[in-house]
Every structure is written in C-alpha cells, then in structure tokens.
C-alpha cells in the first residue's frame, strides 16, 4: 500500500516522462501540432496580439539601437510580455483542443 501511494504522489517519474514523450510524438506525427500552431497564429493576429508585440519590439530596437540589436535581445525583451498578453479566450480555446486530443489519444 505504501508503494502505491508513493507511486501516486511522485511527480516526475520516468513513466510520466515516457508518457509525455509518447504524446508529444503523437501530436507531431498526426499533424495536430501544426494545426494547433496555425490556429494559434491566426487567433493571435486576429486579436491584435501580434501588433502589440511588434510595438514592443520597436521599443526594444530604439532602446538598443537599430544596428546592434540581436535576436536574443528581442526574445528576452518581448517573450515574457508576449506570454502574458495572450487573451484568455484564445488560451481557453487552445487548451480545450489540446485536452480533447489528449483524451482521445492518451491511452
């Protein structure tokens, strides 16, 4: 019984890692990941997220100077805000689709 509880409450077991890898592989193989990516892109453009982030990028560029700005500068300056700026509706929809996929293909 003790072993069972141990099994239940452990978080990053190899079994779990295995499962994750398997599911990710399935996502890619079935083309679902691409579809999700496209869906996310379209939604983000639609809701204006992209333009917002572009404005942020402009600020970073003006800050760092147009000649010397690097990808890392941009990424570091923009990605955290980008994650926060995703609207809730888009997030919910995407999570829903991912869950549906997992429910279908997790076993």
């Amino acid at each position, binding site marked *: 019984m003790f072993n*069972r509880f141990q099994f*239940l*409450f452990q978080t990053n077991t190899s079994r*779990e890692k295995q*499962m*994750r890898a398997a*599911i*990710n592989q399935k*996502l890619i193989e079935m083309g679902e*990941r691409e579809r*999700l*990516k496209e869906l*996310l*892109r379209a939604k*983000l453009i639609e809701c204006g997220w*992209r333009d917002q*982030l*572009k404005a942020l*990028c*402009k600020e970073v*560029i003006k800050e760092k100077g*147009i000649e010397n*700005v*690097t*990808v890392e500068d*941009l*990424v570091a300056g*923009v*990605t955290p805000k*980008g*994650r926060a700026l*995703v609207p809730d509706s888009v*997030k919910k929809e*995407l*999570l829903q689709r*991912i*869950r549906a996929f*997992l*429910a279908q293909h*997790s076993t």
Partner: protein
Amino acid sequence: MKMEDMSLSGLENTKLEALAHDVYSDLVEDACLGLCFEVHRAVKQGYFFLDETDQESMKDFEIVDQPGVDIFGQVYNQWKNKECVCPNCSRSIAASRFAPHLEKCLGMGRNSSRIANRRIASSNNTSKSESDQEDNDDINDNDWSYGSEKKAKKRKSEKNPNSPRRSKSLKHKNGELSSNVNPELYKYNYSSGISYETLGPEELRSILTTQCGVVSEHTKKMCTRSQRCPQHTDEQRRAVRVFLLGPSASALPDSDTMLENDGYDAPDGQLIMSRLQWDGSSDISPSDSASSKASTNNSESKRPKKKKKPSTLTLTTTGSGGERDKGQERERGDRDRVVSGGSGSSSSQNALALSSRKKRPKLPVPPALSIYDDLN
C-alpha cells in the same frame, strides 16, 4: 479501492492537465519566437520601419473634418451648380444632367428612341397604311398584344407614346374603369389585353374560361390576367360573359366550360339564383339524395342533348308527373312545358336542371332537388 481509483484518475487528470498546459506554453513560445525572428530580419534588412512616415507628411495628409468638404479636403458638389449650354438646342443644362440630355437631344444614345422619333417624323409625311406597318414592327418588338395588327391605331398625342418611360406608368391601367387619366394615353399598344371583336365564339369561350376577360372601357380589350385578378370583380366577369356569349352562357369561371349554347331563354336571375344554391350544396354527396334517379339523369345529361332519356322527366316535380311521359323532344323543351304546368318552385327546379346540365361534374343535382321535393 474505490477512493484510490478515484484519486488515481484525479491525479491522472491533473497530469493530463499539466501536460496540456505545457503543450500550450510551447506553442505560445513558438509563436513569440517566430515573431522575434521576423522582426529581427526586417530590422537587419532595413524594411522594418518602412511603413512609418515622418511627422511633416503626417500633418499634410491628416484627415480633414470641416463642413462642406470631404475627408481629403475636396469639395464634392463643386460642379453641380454649374450650367452648360447645349450645342444642339442651345438650352442651359445643369452639369450633372448634361450627358443624358445630350444623349436625348442628339438622338445618339442607347435610350434615345431615335427610331421612334424618326418613324413619327416619317409618318407625318407618308400615308397611313405605311406607317401602320412600321408601327407594327416597332410595337411587336416592344410587347406582345393580341389584336394590335387589327386594331385601328389612334394617332399621336404630344408626347412620344412609345417611349420606355411612358409605358411603365401606363401599363397597368388597362382595365380600370376610372377615367382619371387622359384617354388619349391609352392609344398605344403596350396594352396587355385582347380585343374581343376579332375573336370567334370558340376562342372567346376558351379565353373566358381561363382568363379574367373583363373588357376595359378605354381600350376595348379583355383582361388577360387570371380569373382571380384583383383589378376586376366577379360581377364584371359575369357581365362580360353575358355580353359576349349570350345570356344563357354566363356560367361563372369556377364552373366548367359550357356546353353548346342553345340560346335557351331561361331568365338570368333564376340561373344566378340556382347557381348560388348549387354552390352552397356542392359538398353533399349524391348518395344522400332522395331521388336517386336524378343522379343518373345528371350523368346522362352530359351526353348530347338530343339523345333519348326517358328518365329525365323524373327531374321535375312530382306534382306534374303526368305530363312527363312525352316524346323525346329537346330535353329543355320538355322541361319547359312541364315546368310551366308545374308548381312555382318547378321553374327554379328547371333552372336547376339546366344549370346542372351545364355544370356537370362538379355540382350534385339530387340534394337540392330533394329540397324542392320537400317544398312541393
């Protein structure tokens, strides 16, 4: 065991949930990275700031918000009030109406009715018969009408009667009895009617059974709309039929086509009355009748009138039974004599019989007859 199972699935659920969130974060990060790469490339290639303009130009092309002027600062009806002089008629025309005016004035545009004008001009100089033929060509091009070739064409009003504009407003006025409009306007042949003078009785009958047929006062043409056309009442339709086909042949449109017209002289009023009564009793089945022979008589009456039908005499009232057994003259003649000797209701009965002959399949004879039997 159960609790463990439940918590097990709950944990699995949370794991799945966590997994879903991870997948989601990956996707979002991919999107951000993609954007950063694009921007970086645009910066390095030099086209990132291309869509921006300097401040001065921004002021020059700002949106204008003044009255009388559009957002670009242009006055929109600047040329509306200007007038031009037409080189053809030397009139002063508004600028926005200038082009259509020129079209009509020079007779060169698409809608300028130049052929019609030419024709009218030529008909002034030539004889009437020639111009009639030309009229036919033009009119037949425009619209379909029955007696147009035969109808004498009344000549011009001041305006061009064949212009497209005119036809639209006047097309639907045929058949109306109001004389508000100048009768001259109806002289052209855009009418959608038939001239009854040119048709034989057979044609008239066939037309009257399918179409409204009411003769317009102004054009003397029959209305070609359906029997239920809203422009004319049933009274009008009945009157037209009486007028065109004789009093005995004025069966209403909702009855059948008429039999041969004997020229029978039964009074119209009784026919109409009997018809009204027939309409009321049309839903009673023949089997309900007391005098069943009458139903067979009716079916027999569909045959040509001179055939021998001994049973026809039973149609009439019982009171005048003795007179019935006579030779086979015309059935109507028989009924006539019998009726005249019979009781008062027999005349209507006779009319009933007559109209039953005419309205054969639809209306059952016996039930109404049984009513009169009771009366007698």
